[in-house]
């Protein structure tokens, strides 16, 4: 009888230990509050952690603006970094992110009334930014520039914001308030540990196979990024994206498109500076330039930083060097490049025809 009691007691204590010990490390169900401005689930003022690549936090302010926790002053000149998880910066402390460093760099340069802020969240792409630029028009006073950071994944037809259905068609990218109340309870009581267990169990049950092998080779998926489009379809898609950005620039102010490649990268022991899908990115940037949008390419800046310091701009000590999100170095390069560009191009140039790096 005592043994049975020990086992029940052991299970209860271990469960409590798992919940109490891990709730500081894992938060899978953050952002439970619907925000009307961001049209997204945000948790203003709350720090949260993610445990997938490493540990860090994001410090959202009201309405999901990063770096503007105490409110935005009309006296400050705001530069907004638009992006996805790179700009959101899970693994980098808020003070070392590109938007915070931008403020610091401008302050060091004697330009005290500049403030870098960000509107960013994991999974967003260019289509999301176009829609959100409209939503945030009134939220960010005295906006001097919108820096839209993108990589190739953000301009790929992926079925999230702009789909190809014969021709490119917008679909609403922003989320809708449809979160289940059970998930909110999980978030409120920080029961993320059990949420992860539930997710893993569901995934294991879904992948369950009872029949003996061998298993047939998996059929390649035909959804999202795997779909191959013709050159004409891609060009139409990019034109639609660029048109959306041009329309938004007329209302929200200056937009600067900043391409951030995943280089330099270690591949099979060799340092690779080759940008995947460079040809497509160049085409997209040319389409942007043709419409008068400014573009900046960070490839040289990332590679130069590595050549000068021997440090990668991607990856963390607990993940893989040169792979994954920007580390502190990456954020520094982005902030520095953004400042250099704005210094050399204080106003929007009249005519552009080539993508360029900040030093050009």
């Amino acid at each position, binding site marked *: 009888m005592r043994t049975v009691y020990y086992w029940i007691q052991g299970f209860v204590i*271990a*469960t409590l*230990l798992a919940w109490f010990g*891990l709730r500081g490390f894992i938060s899978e169900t953050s952002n439970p509050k619907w925000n009307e401005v961001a049209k997204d689930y945000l948790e203003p003022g709350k720090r949260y952690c993610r445990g997938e690549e490493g540990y860090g936090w994001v410090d959202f302010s009201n309405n999901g603006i990063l770096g503007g926790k105490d409110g935005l002053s009309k006296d400050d000149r705001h530069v907004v970094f638009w992006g996805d998880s790179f700009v959101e910066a899970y693994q980098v402390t808020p003070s070392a992110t590109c938007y915070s460093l931008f403020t610091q760099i401008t302050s060091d340069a004697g330009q005290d009334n500049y403030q870098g802020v960000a509107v960013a969240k994991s999974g967003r792409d260019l289509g999301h930014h176009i829609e959100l630029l409209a939503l945030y028009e009134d939220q960010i006073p005295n906006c001097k520039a919108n820096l839209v950071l993108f990589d190739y994944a953000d301009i790929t037809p992926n079925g999230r914001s702009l789909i190809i259905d014969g021709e490119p068609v917008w679909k609403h990218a922003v989320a809708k308030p449809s979160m289940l109340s059970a998930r909110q309870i999980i978030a409120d009581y920080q029961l993320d540990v059990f949420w*992860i267990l539930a997710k893993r169990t569901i995934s*294991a049950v879904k992948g*369950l196979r*009872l029949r003996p092998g061998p298993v047939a080779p998996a059929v390649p998926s035909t959804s999202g990024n795997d779909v191959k489009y013709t050159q004409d379809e891609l060009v139409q898609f990019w034109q639609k994206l660029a048109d959306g950005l041009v329309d938004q620039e007329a209302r929200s102010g200056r937009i600067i498109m900043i391409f951030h490649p995943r280089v330099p990268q270690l591949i099979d022991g060799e340092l690779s500076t080759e940008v995947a899908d460079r040809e497509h990115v160049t085409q997209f940037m040319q389409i942007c330039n043709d419409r008068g949008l400014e573009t900046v390419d960070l490839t040289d800046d990332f590679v130069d930083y590595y050549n000068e310091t021997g440090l990668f701009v991607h990856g963390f000590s607990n993940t893989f060097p040169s792979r994954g999100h920007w580390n502190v170095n990456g954020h520094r390069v982005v902030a520095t490049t953004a400042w250099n560009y704005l210094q050399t191009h204080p106003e929007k140039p009249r005519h552009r025809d080539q993508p360029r790096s900040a030093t050009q």
Partner: protein
Amino acid sequence: MIFSQFIFVLFISVVFSFLVLVRHNRARKLFLLAASYYFYAYWDWRFCGLLLLSTIVDFWIGHALKRTDNERSRTCLLLISLAVNLGMLGFFKYYGFFVESMQTMLSPLGWNLSSLGIILPVGISFYTFQTLSYTIDVYRRKLDVCEDIFDFALFVSFFPQLVAGPIVRASEFLPQLNEYRPLTGTRFFLGFRQFTFGLVKKVLIADHLAMVVDFSFENAGAMDGISTWVGAICYTGQIYCDFSGYSDMAIGIARGMGYDFCPNFNHPFAGNSLTTHWRRWHISLSTWLRDYLYIPLGGNRKGKIRTYINLLLTMLLGGLWHGAAWRFVAWGAIHGSALALEKRFDIHTRIDQGSTLNKFFGWAYMMLVVVIAFVFFRAESFGQAIIIIKHMFDPTTFFTGTHWVPLRAVLCLMFIAATHAISMTRFRHVVELKPDRWYTPVLLFTMIYLVLIFQPTSFKPFIYFQF
């Protein structure tokens, strides 16, 4: 089917439920036999035929050996068994290697040999050695012939140890099948505890170290010397936790069902010479090689030189058993040469009787040999292994290149070091987690929570499945 997969949880639940409900020994054995074949067929049902062939051939040869006293006939029967078992192993495991090696030699003459693209049946090296041990023991008249083909088939295919050992001898397992083995609470606890320890080693340690090792070896040459050393040491830790974790799980499952296997690992890095290391590492293989290869070759009975040659030969073949590639032969050669040198200069005894400092140097030398030899074991090619070893010892590249010593590697290595250190102290009984302590279930359940939450997202099969 992998022990750490969800399908296995369902599978083992059905097996244990049956064993609890049914007390008829023969029914239980037949059920376990069917379950074992299902377990094996889960990978590829076509290879069940090989398992069956090996079973029928060795069962028949065992009976034929019993029926005859003619030494010539007996030798012939043994040779048939060796030919069939080693022939299967040779064809499936070494044909590609043979063709590749021949191709290298014959290509200057303009000859081309084609490879058949043969898939290696999982566990073939393990069950081949098991069945061989049965036939050889019967031939040597050290073991009674198994009278029941279903018992023998269960011995060959028993699912806990079927695909990656430990290599169980017939003399150890077959007698356990003769009697009903009740599934008691204590046995279940002991099995569950050992299984959990194995699961922690595999999922929390080995799989996390694998991420470090994979990157480190993939980018060999670009990492600095320190990081290269860390990658090599991490692989030593990974293969230990991966394989001893599997062994723990296998032994735990069998124990829970009422069957006992001998331990396969005993803190192998706690020794201070290679001799002691090999007494603690993959014990079922090292004793198999000793009994069925080293001693038949003459062991240490035919003079010093022959002893050294026998040691080297045994380790070379042990290396080749692991995989059909020259880098495994190199791994065996390093261990064989080092063991021969230890024997020649009586290093093991000198270290054992020496001061604490001697023992420390002995431990450092043992670790150095083990880590370097494992570089050959893990590398994709002989050339990559040489690049890595050059980086480990070249002072000019020691601080140049990408530096990467992730925290997870440090934590995992500290865990391995701590378990080995504790095993040498009087506190080792505390960490055994006795069943009558209140904290035992707490710690076991906590370990399971940690495994479930911190398991890496990418799926990692056991390293020894490829052997």
